[in-house]
Protein backbone atom coordinates (compact mmCIF):
# COMPACT_ATOMS: atom_id res chain seq x y z
CA UNK A 1 0.00 0.00 0.00
CA UNK A 2 2.68 2.45 0.90
CA UNK A 3 1.93 6.10 1.56
CA UNK A 4 -1.41 5.95 -0.21
CA UNK A 5 -3.01 4.48 2.91
CA UNK A 6 -2.91 7.84 4.58
CA UNK A 7 -5.14 9.31 1.89
CA UNK A 8 -8.23 7.72 3.32
CA UNK A 9 -7.72 9.74 6.50
CA UNK A 10 -7.67 13.12 4.86
CA UNK A 11 -10.34 15.56 6.03
CA UNK A 12 -11.32 16.12 2.42
CA UNK A 13 -12.96 12.70 2.37
CA UNK A 14 -15.53 13.71 4.94
CA UNK A 15 -18.98 14.43 3.58
CA UNK A 16 -19.05 18.19 3.13
CA UNK A 17 -21.91 20.47 3.99
CA UNK A 18 -24.56 20.94 1.36
CA UNK A 19 -23.31 24.43 0.60
CA UNK A 20 -19.83 23.06 -0.17
CA UNK A 21 -20.82 20.44 -2.69
CA UNK A 22 -19.90 22.24 -5.84
CA UNK A 23 -17.59 20.93 -8.55
CA UNK A 24 -14.49 22.56 -7.06
CA UNK A 25 -15.13 20.99 -3.67
CA UNK A 26 -15.65 17.65 -5.35
CA UNK A 27 -12.37 17.92 -7.24
CA UNK A 28 -10.64 18.80 -3.99
CA UNK A 29 -12.06 15.67 -2.37
CA UNK A 30 -11.37 13.52 -5.40
CA UNK A 31 -7.85 14.63 -6.13
CA UNK A 32 -6.04 12.65 -3.38
CA UNK A 33 -7.79 9.47 -4.54
CA UNK A 34 -7.17 9.86 -8.21
CA UNK A 35 -3.68 8.39 -8.59
CA UNK A 36 -4.54 5.37 -6.48
CA UNK A 37 -7.71 4.79 -8.52
CA UNK A 38 -5.79 5.22 -11.71
CA UNK A 39 -3.26 2.56 -10.71
CA UNK A 40 -6.03 0.13 -9.86
CA UNK A 41 -7.58 0.91 -13.22
CA UNK A 42 -4.25 0.39 -14.98
CA UNK A 43 -3.94 -3.08 -13.53
CA UNK A 44 -7.46 -4.10 -14.44
CA UNK A 45 -7.74 -2.41 -17.82
CA UNK A 46 -6.23 -3.87 -20.95
CA UNK A 47 -4.82 -0.54 -22.04
CA UNK A 48 -4.02 2.82 -20.61
CA UNK A 49 -6.81 4.69 -22.37
CA UNK A 50 -9.41 2.42 -20.83
CA UNK A 51 -7.95 3.15 -17.43
CA UNK A 52 -8.09 6.89 -18.03
CA UNK A 53 -11.63 6.70 -19.29
CA UNK A 54 -12.65 4.57 -16.35
CA UNK A 55 -11.34 7.08 -13.86
CA UNK A 56 -12.81 10.10 -15.60
CA UNK A 57 -16.15 8.36 -16.11
CA UNK A 58 -16.18 7.24 -12.50
CA UNK A 59 -15.45 10.76 -11.39
CA UNK A 60 -18.29 12.09 -13.47
CA UNK A 61 -20.65 9.39 -12.26
CA UNK A 62 -19.75 10.02 -8.64
CA UNK A 63 -20.26 13.77 -8.71
CA UNK A 64 -24.07 13.79 -8.81
CA UNK A 65 -24.58 11.40 -5.86
CA UNK A 66 -21.77 13.10 -3.96
CA UNK A 67 -23.42 16.48 -4.52
CA UNK A 68 -26.72 15.06 -3.35
CA UNK A 69 -25.07 13.86 -0.16
CA UNK A 70 -25.57 10.18 -0.93
CA UNK A 71 -21.87 9.30 -0.83
CA UNK A 72 -20.62 8.63 2.69
CA UNK A 73 -17.25 7.02 1.86
CA UNK A 74 -15.92 8.64 -1.26
CA UNK A 75 -12.92 6.33 -1.60
CA UNK A 76 -15.00 3.14 -1.56
CA UNK A 77 -17.65 4.67 -3.81
CA UNK A 78 -15.07 5.90 -6.29
CA UNK A 79 -13.26 2.57 -6.29
CA UNK A 80 -16.46 0.75 -6.99
CA UNK A 81 -17.31 3.21 -9.77
CA UNK A 82 -13.93 2.70 -11.42
CA UNK A 83 -14.16 -1.09 -11.23
CA UNK A 84 -17.72 -1.00 -12.55
CA UNK A 85 -16.57 1.06 -15.50
CA UNK A 86 -13.95 -1.54 -16.30
CA UNK A 87 -15.95 -4.70 -15.69
CA UNK A 88 -19.20 -3.60 -17.28
CA UNK A 89 -19.19 -4.90 -20.82
CA UNK A 90 -21.52 -2.21 -22.09
CA UNK A 91 -19.46 0.55 -20.62
CA UNK A 92 -16.26 -0.97 -21.92
CA UNK A 93 -17.68 -0.90 -25.41
CA UNK A 94 -18.84 2.70 -25.07
CA UNK A 95 -15.46 3.65 -23.70
CA UNK A 96 -13.65 1.85 -26.49
CA UNK A 97 -15.82 3.51 -29.10
CA UNK A 98 -15.25 6.91 -27.60
CA UNK A 99 -11.57 6.27 -27.43
CA UNK A 100 -11.41 5.04 -31.00
CA UNK A 101 -12.85 8.38 -32.12
CA UNK A 102 -10.17 10.20 -30.18
CA UNK A 103 -7.23 8.22 -31.41
CA UNK A 104 -6.61 10.38 -34.42
CA UNK A 105 -5.13 13.20 -32.40
CA UNK A 106 -3.79 11.36 -29.38
CA UNK A 107 -1.43 8.45 -29.63
CA UNK A 108 -1.74 7.55 -25.99
CA UNK A 109 -4.66 5.31 -26.82
CA UNK A 110 -2.43 3.07 -28.84
CA UNK A 111 -0.08 2.43 -26.03
CA UNK A 112 -0.81 -0.72 -24.11
CA UNK A 113 -0.15 -0.79 -20.40
CA UNK A 114 2.30 -3.60 -21.00
CA UNK A 115 4.12 -1.43 -23.52
CA UNK A 116 4.21 1.55 -21.27
CA UNK A 117 4.94 0.05 -17.89
CA UNK A 118 6.21 -3.48 -17.86
CA UNK A 119 5.71 -5.22 -21.15
CA UNK A 120 8.18 -7.87 -20.14
CA UNK A 121 6.67 -8.45 -16.80
CA UNK A 122 5.41 -11.98 -16.66
CA UNK A 123 2.86 -11.30 -13.99
CA UNK A 124 1.42 -8.52 -16.05
CA UNK A 125 1.07 -10.79 -19.03
CA UNK A 126 -0.39 -13.56 -16.93
CA UNK A 127 -2.80 -11.09 -15.37
CA UNK A 128 -4.08 -10.00 -18.73
CA UNK A 129 -4.91 -13.58 -19.60
CA UNK A 130 -7.38 -13.77 -16.73
CA UNK A 131 -11.03 -12.92 -17.24
CA UNK A 132 -11.84 -9.31 -16.37
CA UNK A 133 -13.69 -10.14 -13.15
CA UNK A 134 -10.90 -12.41 -11.91
CA UNK A 135 -8.32 -9.79 -12.79
CA UNK A 136 -10.30 -7.20 -10.84
CA UNK A 137 -10.48 -9.52 -7.86
CA UNK A 138 -6.73 -10.15 -7.90
CA UNK A 139 -5.98 -6.44 -8.17
CA UNK A 140 -8.39 -5.48 -5.42
CA UNK A 141 -7.17 -8.18 -3.07
CA UNK A 142 -3.41 -8.18 -3.72
CA UNK A 143 -2.78 -4.63 -4.83
CA UNK A 144 -5.52 -2.60 -3.09
CA UNK A 145 -5.28 -5.01 -0.13
CA UNK A 146 -9.04 -5.22 0.31
CA UNK A 147 -10.65 -7.94 2.35
CA UNK A 148 -12.92 -10.54 0.83
CA UNK A 149 -15.96 -8.61 2.06
CA UNK A 150 -14.70 -5.29 0.69
CA UNK A 151 -13.87 -6.89 -2.64
CA UNK A 152 -17.29 -8.47 -2.80
CA UNK A 153 -18.91 -5.14 -2.00
CA UNK A 154 -16.85 -3.34 -4.61
CA UNK A 155 -17.73 -5.81 -7.32
CA UNK A 156 -21.28 -6.39 -6.15
CA UNK A 157 -20.85 -10.13 -5.86
CA UNK A 158 -21.05 -12.65 -3.02
CA UNK A 159 -18.08 -13.26 -0.77
CA UNK A 160 -18.08 -16.89 -1.82
CA UNK A 161 -17.67 -15.79 -5.39
CA UNK A 162 -14.68 -13.68 -4.45
CA UNK A 163 -13.09 -16.63 -2.64
CA UNK A 164 -13.63 -19.09 -5.44
CA UNK A 165 -12.56 -16.62 -8.13
CA UNK A 166 -9.45 -15.75 -6.13
CA UNK A 167 -8.62 -19.40 -5.88
CA UNK A 168 -9.11 -19.94 -9.59
CA UNK A 169 -7.12 -16.83 -10.49
CA UNK A 170 -4.18 -17.76 -8.26
CA UNK A 171 -4.13 -21.26 -9.61
CA UNK A 172 -4.10 -19.93 -13.17
CA UNK A 173 -1.34 -17.48 -12.33
CA UNK A 174 0.73 -20.19 -10.64
CA UNK A 175 0.38 -22.46 -13.63
CA UNK A 176 1.17 -19.69 -16.09
CA UNK A 177 4.17 -18.34 -14.16
CA UNK A 178 5.42 -21.81 -13.21
CA UNK A 179 5.33 -22.96 -16.80
CA UNK A 180 7.04 -19.81 -17.97
CA UNK A 181 9.74 -20.03 -15.36
CA UNK A 182 10.32 -23.76 -16.14
CA UNK A 183 10.55 -22.88 -19.79
CA UNK A 184 13.09 -20.13 -19.17
CA UNK A 185 15.28 -22.34 -16.99
Amino acid at each position, binding site marked *: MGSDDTLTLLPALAVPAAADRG*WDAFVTAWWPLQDRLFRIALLIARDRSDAEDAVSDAMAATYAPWKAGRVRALDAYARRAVVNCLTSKGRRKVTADRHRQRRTGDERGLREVADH*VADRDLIREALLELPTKQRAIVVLRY*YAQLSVAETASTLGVAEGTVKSQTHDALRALRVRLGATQEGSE
Partner: protein
Amino acid sequence: VTDPHDPFERELTDRLEAIVHGEAAPFELVDRAAARTTELAHQRRLRRGVTGAGLAALVTAAVWLIAVANPIGNGTQHQDTVAFGPDGHRITTTTEAHHPTSSTSSSTSTTEPEGASTTTTTRHEGATGGGPVRSTTTTSVAATTLSTLNPPEGAPEPKCVQITGPSNSVHDSWDEDYRRFWTTQPPEDQPLTLQVCVDDVTPKKGQEVTLTVTADDPDQTFSSDTCSLPNLFWGDEANPKLAPCRDTVAPAPQEPAPVPEPSGPGHLQKTFTHTYSSTGPSTIHVDAGSGPDAPGPLPYSSTASADLPIAVH
Protein backbone atom coordinates in the same frame (compact mmCIF):
# COMPACT_ATOMS: atom_id res chain seq x y z
CA VAL B 1 -6.39 -10.30 3.82
CA THR B 2 -3.97 -12.46 2.01
CA ASP B 3 -1.66 -15.20 3.18
CA PRO B 4 1.56 -13.38 4.14
CA HIS B 5 3.35 -16.67 4.52
CA ASP B 6 2.68 -17.70 0.97
CA PRO B 7 5.70 -16.54 -1.04
CA PHE B 8 3.71 -16.53 -4.24
CA GLU B 9 1.07 -14.19 -2.85
CA ARG B 10 3.73 -11.95 -1.32
CA GLU B 11 5.50 -11.77 -4.63
CA LEU B 12 2.25 -11.10 -6.43
CA THR B 13 1.59 -8.06 -4.26
CA ASP B 14 5.10 -6.75 -4.77
CA ARG B 15 5.02 -7.28 -8.53
CA LEU B 16 1.64 -5.60 -8.89
CA GLU B 17 2.91 -2.56 -7.04
CA ALA B 18 6.00 -2.58 -9.20
CA ILE B 19 3.94 -2.58 -12.38
CA VAL B 20 2.18 0.67 -11.55
CA HIS B 21 4.90 2.22 -9.44
CA GLY B 22 5.25 5.89 -10.21
CA GLU B 23 2.11 5.99 -12.33
CA ALA B 24 -0.02 9.09 -11.93
CA ALA B 25 -3.32 10.07 -13.44
CA PRO B 26 -3.03 12.67 -16.20
CA PHE B 27 -4.09 16.15 -15.18
CA GLU B 28 -6.60 16.40 -17.97
CA LEU B 29 -8.66 13.60 -16.46
CA VAL B 30 -10.46 16.18 -14.36
CA ASP B 31 -11.34 18.18 -17.45
CA ARG B 32 -12.60 15.05 -19.17
CA ALA B 33 -14.61 14.20 -16.09
CA ALA B 34 -16.09 17.70 -16.04
CA ALA B 35 -17.16 17.33 -19.66
CA ARG B 36 -18.56 13.90 -18.94
CA THR B 37 -20.45 15.31 -15.94
CA THR B 38 -22.10 17.87 -18.16
CA GLU B 39 -22.97 15.12 -20.61
CA LEU B 40 -24.48 12.93 -17.87
CA ALA B 41 -26.47 15.85 -16.46
CA HIS B 42 -27.88 16.50 -19.91
CA GLN B 43 -28.83 12.82 -20.27
CA ARG B 44 -30.52 12.89 -16.85
CA ARG B 45 -32.50 15.95 -17.82
CA LEU B 46 -33.46 14.27 -21.06
CA ARG B 47 -34.57 11.10 -19.26
CA ARG B 48 -36.51 13.19 -16.77
CA GLY B 49 -38.17 15.05 -19.61
CA VAL B 50 -39.07 11.82 -21.38
CA THR B 51 -40.41 10.37 -18.15
CA GLY B 52 -42.39 13.53 -17.49
CA ALA B 53 -43.81 13.48 -20.99
CA GLY B 54 -44.74 9.82 -20.56
CA LEU B 55 -46.47 10.52 -17.27
CA ALA B 56 -48.31 13.46 -18.78
CA ALA B 57 -49.48 11.24 -21.63
CA LEU B 58 -50.68 8.62 -19.17
CA VAL B 59 -52.57 11.19 -17.11
CA THR B 60 -54.14 12.62 -20.24
CA ALA B 61 -55.18 9.15 -21.37
CA ALA B 62 -56.64 8.37 -17.95
CA VAL B 63 -58.59 11.64 -17.91
CA TRP B 64 -59.83 10.93 -21.40
CA LEU B 65 -60.95 7.41 -20.45
CA ILE B 66 -62.77 8.74 -17.39
CA ALA B 67 -64.40 11.42 -19.50
CA VAL B 68 -65.52 8.81 -22.03
CA ALA B 69 -66.86 6.54 -19.31
CA ASN B 70 -68.72 9.38 -17.60
CA PRO B 71 -69.65 12.08 -20.10
CA ILE B 72 -69.82 15.49 -18.44
CA GLY B 73 -73.30 16.92 -18.42
CA ASN B 74 -74.94 13.62 -19.32
CA GLY B 75 -72.90 11.40 -17.12
CA THR B 76 -73.02 10.47 -13.52
CA GLN B 77 -75.24 12.54 -11.33
CA HIS B 78 -74.91 12.26 -7.61
CA GLN B 79 -77.45 13.02 -4.99
CA ASP B 80 -76.83 12.55 -1.31
CA THR B 81 -79.65 12.54 1.19
CA VAL B 82 -79.18 12.21 4.91
CA ALA B 83 -82.02 11.10 7.14
CA PHE B 84 -82.43 9.50 10.53
CA GLY B 85 -84.20 6.27 11.17
CA PRO B 86 -86.88 5.71 13.78
CA ASP B 87 -84.33 4.42 16.28
CA GLY B 88 -82.05 7.39 15.80
CA HIS B 89 -79.54 5.89 13.41
CA ARG B 90 -78.23 7.86 10.51
CA ILE B 91 -79.24 7.00 6.96
CA THR B 92 -77.20 8.34 4.07
CA THR B 93 -78.57 7.87 0.60
CA THR B 94 -76.31 8.37 -2.40
CA THR B 95 -77.90 8.28 -5.80
CA GLU B 96 -75.91 7.94 -9.00
CA ALA B 97 -77.65 8.25 -12.33
CA HIS B 98 -75.81 7.04 -15.41
CA HIS B 99 -76.83 8.15 -18.88
CA PRO B 100 -74.91 6.39 -21.59
CA THR B 101 -75.77 8.83 -24.33
CA SER B 102 -76.63 12.47 -24.62
CA SER B 103 -80.12 13.79 -24.30
CA THR B 104 -81.54 16.35 -26.62
CA SER B 105 -84.03 18.97 -25.71
CA SER B 106 -86.07 21.48 -27.59
CA SER B 107 -89.28 23.35 -27.13
CA THR B 108 -91.29 20.63 -28.76
CA SER B 109 -89.70 17.35 -27.83
CA THR B 110 -87.17 15.82 -25.53
CA THR B 111 -85.67 12.39 -25.72
CA GLU B 112 -83.76 10.73 -22.95
CA PRO B 113 -81.53 7.76 -23.60
CA GLU B 114 -82.67 4.27 -23.10
CA GLY B 115 -80.72 1.95 -20.89
CA ALA B 116 -80.05 4.55 -18.23
CA SER B 117 -79.82 3.36 -14.68
CA THR B 118 -79.88 4.77 -11.20
CA THR B 119 -78.13 3.21 -8.27
CA THR B 120 -79.08 4.22 -4.78
CA THR B 121 -76.86 3.13 -1.94
CA THR B 122 -78.27 3.52 1.52
CA ARG B 123 -75.97 3.39 4.51
CA HIS B 124 -77.22 3.03 8.04
CA GLU B 125 -74.84 4.06 10.78
CA GLY B 126 -75.05 3.91 14.55
CA ALA B 127 -78.06 1.66 14.76
CA THR B 128 -78.81 0.52 18.25
CA GLY B 129 -78.22 -3.07 19.12
CA GLY B 130 -75.50 -3.73 16.60
CA GLY B 131 -72.83 -2.32 14.31
CA PRO B 132 -73.36 -0.33 11.17
CA VAL B 133 -75.85 -1.78 8.79
CA ARG B 134 -76.14 -1.26 5.07
CA SER B 135 -78.65 -1.92 2.45
CA THR B 136 -78.68 -1.29 -1.24
CA THR B 137 -81.62 -0.14 -3.24
CA THR B 138 -81.07 -0.29 -6.95
CA THR B 139 -83.40 1.53 -9.22
CA SER B 140 -83.13 0.57 -12.84
CA VAL B 141 -84.55 2.74 -15.53
CA ALA B 142 -85.01 0.16 -18.18
CA ALA B 143 -86.88 2.46 -20.44
CA THR B 144 -87.23 5.97 -19.15
CA THR B 145 -89.13 7.82 -21.76
CA LEU B 146 -90.05 11.43 -22.01
CA SER B 147 -92.31 12.26 -24.85
CA THR B 148 -94.36 15.22 -25.84
CA LEU B 149 -97.94 14.53 -26.65
CA ASN B 150 -98.89 16.53 -29.66
CA PRO B 151 -102.30 18.19 -29.55
CA PRO B 152 -104.87 17.80 -32.32
CA GLU B 153 -104.51 19.79 -35.52
CA GLY B 154 -105.21 23.51 -35.02
CA ALA B 155 -105.02 23.44 -31.25
CA PRO B 156 -102.58 25.62 -29.27
CA GLU B 157 -98.96 24.69 -28.69
CA PRO B 158 -98.05 21.21 -27.38
CA LYS B 159 -98.98 21.17 -23.74
CA CYS B 160 -98.37 17.76 -22.18
CA VAL B 161 -95.39 15.64 -21.20
CA GLN B 162 -95.57 12.08 -20.03
CA ILE B 163 -92.94 10.32 -17.99
CA THR B 164 -92.57 6.62 -17.29
CA GLY B 165 -90.60 6.54 -14.11
CA PRO B 166 -87.92 4.13 -13.05
CA SER B 167 -88.57 0.60 -11.92
CA ASN B 168 -87.84 0.63 -8.25
CA SER B 169 -86.41 -2.61 -6.98
CA VAL B 170 -85.63 -3.08 -3.30
CA HIS B 171 -83.37 -6.07 -2.95
CA ASP B 172 -83.26 -8.46 -0.10
CA SER B 173 -79.93 -6.94 0.78
CA TRP B 174 -78.17 -7.58 4.04
CA ASP B 175 -75.06 -6.87 5.98
CA GLU B 176 -72.72 -9.24 7.73
CA ASP B 177 -73.42 -7.45 10.97
CA TYR B 178 -77.14 -7.38 10.34
CA ARG B 179 -79.62 -9.47 8.39
CA ARG B 180 -81.85 -9.31 5.37
CA PHE B 181 -84.54 -6.75 5.20
CA TRP B 182 -86.85 -8.99 3.25
CA THR B 183 -86.99 -12.69 3.67
CA THR B 184 -87.27 -13.16 -0.08
CA GLN B 185 -86.47 -11.14 -3.13
CA PRO B 186 -89.40 -8.82 -3.90
CA PRO B 187 -90.92 -9.08 -7.37
CA GLU B 188 -90.07 -6.51 -9.99
CA ASP B 189 -91.64 -3.13 -9.44
CA GLN B 190 -94.03 -1.71 -12.02
CA PRO B 191 -92.99 1.87 -12.78
CA LEU B 192 -95.08 4.92 -12.18
CA THR B 193 -96.40 6.90 -15.14
CA LEU B 194 -96.68 10.64 -14.71
CA GLN B 195 -98.44 12.95 -17.12
CA VAL B 196 -98.32 16.70 -16.81
CA CYS B 197 -100.50 18.89 -19.00
CA VAL B 198 -100.83 22.65 -19.16
CA ASP B 199 -103.63 24.32 -21.06
CA ASP B 200 -101.29 26.78 -22.76
CA VAL B 201 -97.50 26.63 -22.96
CA THR B 202 -97.32 30.20 -24.30
CA PRO B 203 -99.51 32.07 -21.84
CA LYS B 204 -99.60 35.83 -21.57
CA LYS B 205 -98.49 37.69 -18.50
CA GLY B 206 -101.41 37.73 -16.03
CA GLN B 207 -103.16 34.82 -17.74
CA GLU B 208 -104.26 31.98 -15.49
CA VAL B 209 -102.63 28.66 -16.39
CA THR B 210 -104.22 25.34 -15.52
CA LEU B 211 -102.01 22.36 -14.86
CA THR B 212 -103.26 18.80 -14.67
CA VAL B 213 -101.12 16.12 -13.05
CA THR B 214 -102.00 12.48 -13.55
CA ALA B 215 -100.02 9.63 -12.00
CA ASP B 216 -100.59 5.90 -12.26
CA ASP B 217 -98.78 3.08 -10.49
CA PRO B 218 -99.93 -0.45 -11.41
CA ASP B 219 -98.79 -2.06 -8.16
CA GLN B 220 -98.86 0.63 -5.47
CA THR B 221 -101.52 3.02 -4.25
CA PHE B 222 -100.92 6.69 -3.52
CA SER B 223 -101.00 7.97 0.01
CA SER B 224 -103.49 10.60 0.89
CA ASP B 225 -101.19 12.83 2.86
CA THR B 226 -99.29 15.77 1.48
CA CYS B 227 -96.13 14.04 0.47
CA SER B 228 -97.93 12.00 -2.09
CA LEU B 229 -99.35 15.09 -3.62
CA PRO B 230 -97.06 16.06 -6.44
CA ASN B 231 -94.38 18.54 -5.56
CA LEU B 232 -94.98 21.38 -7.96
CA PHE B 233 -92.75 24.22 -9.04
CA TRP B 234 -94.07 26.75 -11.52
CA GLY B 235 -90.65 28.06 -12.46
CA ASP B 236 -91.16 31.69 -11.48
CA GLU B 237 -90.24 31.31 -7.84
CA ALA B 238 -93.78 31.96 -6.79
CA ASN B 239 -93.48 28.71 -4.88
CA PRO B 240 -90.01 27.25 -4.32
CA LYS B 241 -89.26 23.85 -5.51
CA LEU B 242 -89.76 21.41 -2.69
CA ALA B 243 -87.33 18.67 -1.89
CA PRO B 244 -88.94 15.27 -2.18
CA CYS B 245 -90.33 14.44 1.20
CA ARG B 246 -90.05 10.73 0.66
CA ASP B 247 -86.63 9.24 0.13
CA THR B 248 -86.06 6.00 -1.64
CA VAL B 249 -84.54 4.15 1.25
CA ALA B 250 -84.71 0.62 2.47
CA PRO B 251 -86.71 -0.21 5.56
CA ALA B 252 -85.21 0.61 8.91
CA PRO B 253 -83.16 -2.25 10.33
CA GLN B 254 -85.65 -4.51 11.93
CA GLU B 255 -86.38 -8.17 11.93
CA PRO B 256 -86.57 -9.71 8.46
CA ALA B 257 -90.00 -9.10 7.07
CA PRO B 258 -91.91 -11.05 4.46
CA VAL B 259 -92.52 -9.30 1.19
CA PRO B 260 -96.03 -7.79 1.21
CA GLU B 261 -98.55 -8.16 -1.57
CA PRO B 262 -98.86 -5.32 -4.09
CA SER B 263 -101.49 -2.79 -3.06
CA GLY B 264 -102.06 -1.28 -6.51
CA PRO B 265 -103.11 -0.17 -8.89
CA GLY B 266 -102.97 3.41 -7.69
CA HIS B 267 -104.22 6.49 -9.49
CA LEU B 268 -103.76 10.17 -8.71
CA GLN B 269 -105.08 13.19 -10.59
CA LYS B 270 -104.95 16.78 -9.44
CA THR B 271 -105.43 20.16 -11.04
CA PHE B 272 -103.61 23.37 -10.16
CA THR B 273 -103.82 26.93 -11.42
CA HIS B 274 -101.27 29.69 -11.48
CA THR B 275 -100.83 33.18 -12.91
CA TYR B 276 -97.43 34.32 -14.10
CA SER B 277 -96.57 37.90 -13.19
CA SER B 278 -93.52 38.26 -15.40
CA THR B 279 -92.57 37.36 -18.93
CA GLY B 280 -89.86 34.97 -20.05
CA PRO B 281 -89.22 31.25 -20.23
CA SER B 282 -90.04 29.02 -17.28
CA THR B 283 -90.03 25.33 -16.53
CA ILE B 284 -92.81 23.66 -14.59
CA HIS B 285 -91.39 20.84 -12.50
CA VAL B 286 -93.50 18.06 -10.95
CA ASP B 287 -92.43 15.23 -8.64
CA ALA B 288 -94.81 12.39 -7.83
CA GLY B 289 -94.43 9.24 -5.80
CA SER B 290 -96.56 6.31 -4.74
CA GLY B 291 -96.55 4.46 -1.46
CA PRO B 292 -96.24 5.60 2.13
CA ASP B 293 -94.39 8.73 3.14
CA ALA B 294 -92.37 7.37 6.02
CA PRO B 295 -88.84 6.10 5.37
CA GLY B 296 -88.91 2.55 4.28
CA PRO B 297 -91.04 2.34 1.19
CA LEU B 298 -92.69 -0.78 0.08
CA PRO B 299 -90.91 -2.58 -2.73
CA TYR B 300 -93.59 -1.40 -5.15
CA SER B 301 -93.22 2.32 -4.40
CA SER B 302 -92.15 4.37 -7.38
CA THR B 303 -91.34 7.95 -8.23
CA ALA B 304 -91.29 10.04 -11.37
CA SER B 305 -90.48 13.63 -12.24
CA ALA B 306 -91.46 15.74 -15.21
CA ASP B 307 -90.42 19.12 -16.60
CA LEU B 308 -92.66 21.11 -18.88
CA PRO B 309 -91.18 24.24 -20.47
CA ILE B 310 -93.43 27.22 -21.09
CA ALA B 311 -92.85 30.74 -22.35
CA VAL B 312 -94.75 33.67 -20.85
CA HIS B 313 -95.09 36.70 -23.08
